[in-house]
């Protein structure tokens, strides 16, 4: 049980996928200008990362490893993620239109969100078992969502401020993200 709690805290705060491991920055800066888009994107990311984490674990340990095909990992993972996103999109459109209305437009963007492939690869590198994989995928994606939503809240304020011209938009976004990351650095002391 202890190992799960440590894993959850370390994935959400200490090794925050966005601010500490630098993954998924392009959509981070793209959709964080407004709160509602940030929220929609976060939910979609949580959804896809947890599913992708589970499926890629099965692919890795039941297909790639037994047949010594681990060099095809990158190729098979990205194909799995791309088709998963496509399937989820079709499923939601047909069966849960309410959810589709909320997440639909973010789903295609997620295939090229490196946080998804990144989390799957980290899970394999750390050699987690299935349950740990699920917990770590969930925590990493929650950490991503948390950072994204908090950041969007700040960015809405920045839009009201008078920023020097060359610093506008992505530039000030990155500097703010740096300050944010500095704040997350404070969590480093939590687990020895």
């Amino acid at each position: 049980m202890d190992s799960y709690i440590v894993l959850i805290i370390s994935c959400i705060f200490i090794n925050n996928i966005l601010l500490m491991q630098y993954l998924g920055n392009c959509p981070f800066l793209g959709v964080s200008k407004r709160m509602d888009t940030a929220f929609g994107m976060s939910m979609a990311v949580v959804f896809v990362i947890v599913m992708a984490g589970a499926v890629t674990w099965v692919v890795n340990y039941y297909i790639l490893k037994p047949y010594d095909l681990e060099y095809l990992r990158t190729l098979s993972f990205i194909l799995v993620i791309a088709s998963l996103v496509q399937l989820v999109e079709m499923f939601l459109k047909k069966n849960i239109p309410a959810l589709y209305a909320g997440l639909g437009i973010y789903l295609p963007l997620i295939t090229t969100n490196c946080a998804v492939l990144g989390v799957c690869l980290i899970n394999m590198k750390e050699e987690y078992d299935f349950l740990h994989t699920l917990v770590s995928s969930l925590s990493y994606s929650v950490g991503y969502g948390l950072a994204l939503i908090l950041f969007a809240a700040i960015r809405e304020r920045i839009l009201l401020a008078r920023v020097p011209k060359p610093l506008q938009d992505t530039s000030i976004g990155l500097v703010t993200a740096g300050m944010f990351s500095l704040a997350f650095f404070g969590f480093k002391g939590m687990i020895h």
Partner: protein
Amino acid sequence: MLKRVFREFIKGLWEEIPPFRLVLGLCPTLAVTKRVEDAIGMGLAVIFVLTCSNVIVSSVRNFIPKQVRIACFIVVIATFVTIVELVMQAFTYHIYQALGIFIPLIVVNCILLGRAEAFASKNGIIYSFADGLGIGIGYTLSLTALAAIREIFGYGTFFNIPVFGPSFKPFSFMVKAPGAFVCLGLMLCIMNMFKK
């Protein structure tokens, strides 16, 4: 024709230099620019993958059904990424270890899919080659510049050779995650000043 090839090549070095003008591929820009050595390794990997995938995508662009083109592009890119991964593992193992999961993550670097979709799938082989090479070299230059600043101040070294005297105290903020964000943000700001 030669003139246009040259133009496609040169635009990647300044006019559309990623990640400043073409704000794509930020994750590796932040992650692998702790040391100049790693940045150049990453840059070379991107140059290889981008040039090869551009050429292949451009040469088969008329055979790919439109609905599955993205999937096909991804397969092409992933193939070259895996080749780079294997070759790096075999010949430059320490750079492979330093770059870690960022080599397989080249697959989802938006620059590659972006160029395949926006350029290579619409233009001829030679132009696509020039475009891939130009953008790739431009990206490498940006990575190297950022890495040089971070390494010099963060570790006090350049290419692992000390540049300051022994009394220099490294400014380790620069090589940590927050420093990466702030540095890139300020560099982007400086680049924006040149834009009219």
